[in-house]
């Protein structure tokens, strides 16, 4: 920072309002509604994401009712079913997971973890949320237009997405595309904030290689999103033009129900390339923040330094980079030139190596640790189980020839739900149990938490593990009803009914979680400062919860990485990042035992 001299300052009249006074909001509206405090914006993002996520959850119940008990629920027509799966997928991937990890956890944790007072562009950050909310409202509006929301599948593949054989092809699809475009605009505003804050607003001593892995995960995920979302954006714009103005970006010559259409020469595969150029990085936009957060949960609650920090950082960066050259593994049987298969299978399987390294390092952090089985730790362990499960089925689908029989079957549904549905959501739960005391000053109820954990983890496993076997059998996905076939035994219907019951139970268990959140926010056991004895910076704020500006008068100074747990010779089993080497309390007895 430039050193400004004091010469001449005596002539400047004193400010009428002190700078710090201007910084803080004055009214309820500017404090809680049009707030520019990243922590409030985080809660707004998270609240909106969870609210629309509940809609997605109910949609999943409805589709499961149809699959588990076909012909019983006469109010679910084929049109409804395809609308349910489409909106469920889009809501969960974009409006819940992306918004919650980046808009929610990103906003809350980045400034606190890097030692900043706030995001670098607070006003733009506020706009980001309000545009996100608008995107959600436009999405919801599609239920109230003629024809209802689009039923094109969350992949929105043309030509069918804009032809009359698909539900919502008149208005629903247009609202979906507008909503996505708005989401991307809003996200870009937030995303630039997260990246610039990490690069420019770190406090003294907080080098990049001292950042907690949570920040690394969110940081790299945001860069991916800033690079990947534009592909979806142009895809959405081009499809809107095809629909509204009759252009032919994605539309070849077509006879629809005996009628010659006026489209000529467009390419449906072009859309698929654009979609998956966004869509595959999107998987890691959700996964990388989960990787980062779970690393911190495991390290903190195992009271052990994260194993192989540098390799963990590099793994995040390498996975992020590779995620841009694997997209066409979603298109092995799309009819594209099959020789692409060799390239994309190779790049896809290479990603397994850095991903496996991350898994090894998580379990090696548990190894020789001092493991506290708190609720966040239990969720972290459940994450590893479900993530490894979903990761290895990725080795099936990524290996092009194995994908041929399994693609478009229930195996794919089971795979992506395990790896980017269940696993990241378990991390989200763990993270909420972990950081709730920081946000509210109160602990979540442990008994309710355990109930929520066991039902969610085991229930989700019982839903998705057997579902893979329906895929091996060849049961296709996105089927309103399978009816009688010669290759599916009657027992498969029993399995489908079982999965539906499990899905209903897991869904209802989330009510316990919501109750826990609201009850504990007001009546929960007050939390002590830094209840988990965490070393990272966000727990070292002067206030609990931290106030506007996070750090009071002085910004913290960082002396060490975020993982000083069990340091030999130290009195406590953790040393916060902002404790100077000379301030560390030593325990001489322990030092001797450590050296012997």
């Amino acid at each position: 920072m430039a050193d400004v001299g004091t010469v001449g300052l005596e002539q400047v009249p004193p400010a009428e309002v002190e700078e710090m006074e201007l910084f803080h909001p004055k009214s309820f509206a500017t404090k809680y509604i049009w707030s520019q405090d990243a922590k409030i914006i985080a809660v707004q993002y998270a609240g909106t994401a969870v609210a629309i996520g509940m809609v997605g959850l109910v949609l999943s119940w409805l589709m499961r009712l149809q699959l588990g008990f076909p012909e019983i629920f006469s109010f679910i027509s084929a049109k409804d079913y395809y609308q349910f799966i489409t909106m469920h997928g889009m809501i969960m991937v974009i409006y819940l997971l992306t918004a919650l990890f980046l808009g929610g956890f990103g906003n809350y944790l980045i400034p606190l973890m890097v030692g900043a007072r706030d995001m670098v562009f607070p006003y733009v950050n506020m706009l980001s949320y309000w545009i996100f909310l608008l995107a959600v409202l436009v999405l919801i509006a599609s239920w109230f237009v003629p024809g209802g929301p689009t039923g094109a599948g969350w992949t929105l593949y043309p030509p069918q997405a804009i032809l009359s054989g698909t539900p919502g092809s008149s208005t629903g699809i247009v609202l979906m595309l507008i909503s996505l475009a708005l989401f991307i605009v809003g996200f870009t505003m937030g995303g630039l904030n997260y990246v610039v804050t990490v690069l420019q607003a770190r406090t003294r001593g907080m080098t990049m290689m001292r950042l907690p892995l949570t920040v690394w995960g969110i940081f790299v995920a945001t860069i991916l999103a800033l690079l990947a979302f534009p592909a979806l954006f142009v895809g959405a714009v081009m499809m809107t033009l095809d629909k509204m103005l009759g252009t032919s970006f994605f539309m070849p010559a077509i006879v629809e129900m005996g009628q010659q259409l006026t489209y000529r020469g467009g390419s449906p595969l072009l859309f698929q390339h654009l979609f998956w150029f966004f869509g595959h990085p999107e998987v890691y936009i959700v996964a990388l923040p989960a990787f980062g957060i779970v690393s911190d949960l495991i390290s903190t609650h195992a009271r052990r330094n994260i194993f192989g920090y540098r390799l963990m950082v590099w793994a995040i960066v390498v996975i992020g980079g590779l995620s841009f050259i694997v997209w066409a593994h979603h298109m092995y049987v799309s009819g594209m030139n099959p020789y692409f298969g060799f390239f994309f299978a190779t790049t896809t399987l290479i990603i397994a190596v850095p991903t496996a390294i991350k898994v090894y390092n998580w379990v090696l952090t548990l190894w020789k640790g001092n493991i506290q089985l708190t609720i966040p730790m239990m969720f972290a362990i459940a994450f590893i189980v479900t993530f490894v499960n979903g990761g290895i089925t990725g080795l099936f689908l990524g290996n092009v020839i194995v994908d041929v029989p399994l693609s478009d079957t229930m195996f794919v549904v089971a795979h992506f739900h395990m790896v980017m549905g269940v696993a990241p959501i378990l991390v989200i739960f763990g993270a909420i149990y972990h950081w709730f005391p920081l946000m509210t000053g109160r602990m979540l109820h442990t008994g309710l938490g355990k109930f929520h954990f066991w039902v969610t983890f085991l229930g989700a496993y019982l839903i998705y593990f057997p579902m893979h076997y329906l895929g091996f059998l060849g049961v296709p996905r996105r089927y309103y009803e399978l009816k009688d076939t010669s290759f599916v035994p009657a027992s498969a219907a029993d399995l489908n009914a079982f999965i539906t019951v499990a899905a209903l139970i897991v869904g209802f268990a989330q009510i316990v979680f919501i109750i826990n959140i609201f009850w504990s926010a007001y009546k929960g056991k007050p939390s002590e400062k830094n209840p988990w004895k965490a070393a990272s910076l966000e727990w070292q704020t002067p206030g609990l919860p931290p106030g506007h500006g996070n750090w009071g008068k002085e910004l913290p100074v960082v002396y060490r990485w975020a993982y000083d747990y069990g340091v030999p010779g130290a009195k406590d089993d953790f040393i916060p990042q902002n404790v100077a080497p000379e301030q560390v309390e030593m325990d001489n007895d322990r030092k001797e035992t450590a050296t012997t």
Partner: protein
Amino acid sequence: MSNRWIVAFVLLVVAVGSVIFHLVTPWWSTPIASNWSQIDFTINLTFWITGFVYVAVILFMAWCIFKYRYRPDRRAEYEPENKKLEIWLTAITTVGVAGLLAPGLIAWDAYVDVPKDASEVEVVGKQWEWSYRFPGKDGKLGKTAIRFINSDNPFGIDPKDPNGKDDILIEDTDVTLPIGKSYKVLLRSTDVLHDFYVPQFRAKMDLVPGRVSYFWFKTTRRGTFDILCAELCGVGHHAMRGKVSVVTPGDFDKWLGEQTTFAQAQKEARLRKQKKEAIKRAANETKQAARN
């Protein structure tokens, strides 16, 4: 019972239970009816290698949770890095992944490379039904274009292309194939994406309007198998079905002989048209006569 017992025990149950489920499950791949046993081999290889890693990771975690439980008087080992261990794990994983990829790519090479003796058959998809076209005696399919499609020419065959005259048209969702023969399946859609999917054949590929895609396979087992659409194609997607019967070559030739060629279909269409016009003319004449 303390929490660590429960968590370690449940992890054990998840690992062992998943293996047992796999061993007793009634739900597994349908008996294969094509040459692609290489695909099944790669699936099984992948299953056992990855399954071993999965169980090993869970059991190791369960053991860690049990062994390294929290005690206030104990400290975790402080070990930020262990280069040797990390290099070993990376190397073993790389070898394992290469071991999965290699057989996969070899099989894919076979999948992409159509044998010279394969015959062609065309599958046409439209919302929401299948139809098929076999080449006639010349062994060549006639050219097609969307603009030629009308009620008399649903396949859109170019009427000027001589190769198309003897094409055999199957305007039915069911089709018959001879056993022991390789087919290059040419896939064509006239409206949206579809995917020709017969679980027992293992092979599948999307139909993309505006282009012709393909896959190949050889029939190896007699029987009647379900044809499904495996790419979401609108509200009737789940109802887009058909059946393929694999029969002896003799039965196949007999069946094929009973089908209509494009030339015959056009002739019939022409006759229909002439008949219609004749009736119209007769009606007009009667009307005129009545007026007079």
